[in-house]
């Protein structure tokens, strides 16, 4: 049995831990494990090679992915899907383990529907893959957000400022809500709960009146603030999966808040810091459990499924269900955060 493993989409800490778990669990079953380079692009280009134990040793704590990644969608490339099938044949790959977010997994689903044996492993720092409570990379990302909040509090206090932190998360508020809650943020803005400048300013003013002359405001890149119109974007040209690059709301918001309240605002756009660094405990363990579970699915010939975490149990969800659903922020978390502003 020959297994091909790939990592697609954005970087997230924990990918290497997952690759390592797939490889080791696979070898225990007597499978051969091949690495496909740079996500789906590797299958388009036939960039596939056997993984050796040397390559996965010591990679558990490393961020990034030893296999490289890309946002390539083979179905948007001329002859792409044919080239993928050719590569599967020429490298005699029996099963594909696709580690990625919903874009990567959507390609996996399409191939599965064309008869390829595919197993999915959910990864994204945004935690917005349906069917699983958590995805690889999310916990590490919110640790970065929390750390930024911790670092910005003293300087906000010293200068009586409003520190605005723009975080990633695309259309889901998980990163902002969880990171903000852990970081003691005073205002958290998420896409699932549109807000208004009036409301935001009123809350900041209320804090001032209580003697709290500084605030930390965490805003999700996809948050919607009524007076600002639609979501703020950096690049309107969509990528191969139809996504535009969000970003910029932090600066816009800071300008408006400062103009309306007179409070000095400073902006920190966390950006790719959220994607980097060594994976946290939670991500290392999750990625490892997922990798092992993927091999278990293969052993049971359960193809077309994605491994998932529900509560503390590892389970499997059909890819069709995953890609038909959504995983937006559990609003209970958001309500809890509001209690603390």
């Amino acid at each position: 049995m020959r297994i091909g493993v790939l990592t697609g989409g954005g970087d997230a800490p924990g990918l290497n831990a997952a690759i390592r778990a797939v490889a080791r669990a696979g070898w225990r079953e007597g499978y051969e494990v091949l690495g496909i380079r740079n996500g789906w692009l590797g299958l388009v280009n036939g960039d596939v090679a056997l993984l050796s134990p040397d390559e996965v040793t010591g990679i558990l704590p490393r961020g990034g992915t030893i296999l490289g990644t890309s946002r390539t969608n083979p179905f948007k490339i001329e002859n792409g899907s044919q080239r993928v099938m050719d590569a599967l044949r020429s490298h005699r790959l029996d099963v594909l383990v696709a580690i990625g977010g919903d874009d990567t997994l959507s390609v996996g689903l399409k191939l599965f529907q064309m008869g390829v044996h595919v197993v999915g492993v959910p990864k994204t720092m945004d935690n917005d893959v349906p069917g699983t409570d958590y995805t690889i990379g999310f916990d590490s990302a919110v640790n970065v957000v929390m750390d930024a909040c911790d670092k910005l509090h003293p300087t906000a206090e010293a200068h009586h400022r409003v520190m605005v932190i723009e975080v990633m998360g695309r259309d889901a508020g998980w990163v902002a809500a969880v990171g903000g809650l852990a970081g003691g943020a005073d205002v958290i803005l998420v896409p699932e709960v549109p807000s208004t400048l009036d409301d935001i300013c009123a809350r900041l003013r209320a804090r001032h009146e209580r003697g709290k002359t500084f605030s930390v405001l965490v805003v999700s890149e996809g948050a919607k603030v009524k007076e600002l119109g639609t979501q703020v974007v950096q690049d309107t040209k969509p990528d191969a999966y139809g996504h535009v690059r969000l970003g910029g709301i932090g600066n816009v918001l800071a300008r408006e808040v400062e103009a309306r309240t007179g409070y000095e605002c400073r902006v920190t756009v966390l950006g790719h810091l959220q994607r980097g660094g060594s994976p946290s405990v939670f991500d290392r363990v999750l990625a490892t459990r997922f990798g092992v579970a993927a091999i278990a699915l293969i052993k049971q010939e359960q193809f077309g499924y994605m491994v998932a975490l529900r509560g503390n149990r590892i389970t499997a969800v059909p890819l069709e269900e995953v890609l038909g659903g959504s995983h937006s922020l559990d609003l209970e978390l958001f309500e809890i955060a509001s209690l603390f502003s």
Partner: protein
Amino acid sequence: MPRLAVLTSGGDAPGMNAAIRAVVRTATFYGWDVTGVRHGYAGLIAGETVPLTARDVGGIIQLGGTILHSARCPEFHEEPGRSQGLRTLRDHRADALVVIGGNGSQCGAHDLAEAGVPVVGVGSTIDNDLYGAEITIGVDTALNIALEAVDRLKTTASALQRAFLVEVMGRNCGYLALMTAVAGGAEAVVIPEMDTDPERLVEDLRAAAERGKAHAMVVVAEGARYNAEKLIGFFREHRDRLGYEVRATILGHVQRGGAPTAFDRLLATRLGAAAVEQVIAGRYGVLIGLRRGEIAATPLEEVVANKKTLDLRLLDLARKLAT
């Protein structure tokens, strides 16, 4: 009982609290009373003070920020601000003042010295641009934070051919950027002290891509003529020639926050204590700072009259190592 006043002014820097603590504890040890002035020179003008005892500074050595808060106060450079400040010191019977801060703050200290106030300065700023102090309180922490960010970003460059622009603080001084670049293994660094031709930078990065570098890191000082925002604009226009996809991260105020490193705690403690020793010995009108690795006192008029220069040899080193 003689009384010492102390304030923190200008941009906050990790280690300021450690310095305050050292000032308070050392003064108390020598039988002096300490009055803290809140919000820097703005507090001096407004008469916002708070008594500081040895117990009030317990547990603050590891805290970022400053328990006395800080402010930028242009009013202090003129009247009536100046006289109001002097009156506050008189009203509170302060026999001497310790000013913890950077350039602007030490200018204020110099003005007070000229007006006859016994004052001693302690250099603190993450920009490291203060003459008379080869390294100031807060720099090491800021450098470590910037470095951690660079290391973190490097791990995300698994996506194909990525170049990262990382902008660090420093105002008009390229020290933080240069040190971060060398210690972070960056391919290029852009600082205010050197004229950067963005064309040349594009060429350098393209050549690096051709040499087989899968990703590139460029550290940019916020005060450079071509800062991250301007460079990103330029790179976008020349996207095809670059050889890399470019992403920019502006580190911002996280560089000011967080717990001071061991180096900053030690530096702040030694300088704070030394400042008080100066006061006790009656040697005023100076800035306490490290010079050639030793604690030294530099007359404030020299501090405000001179500009600190950056050792550009490290720039050569950075270039060679980007091979």
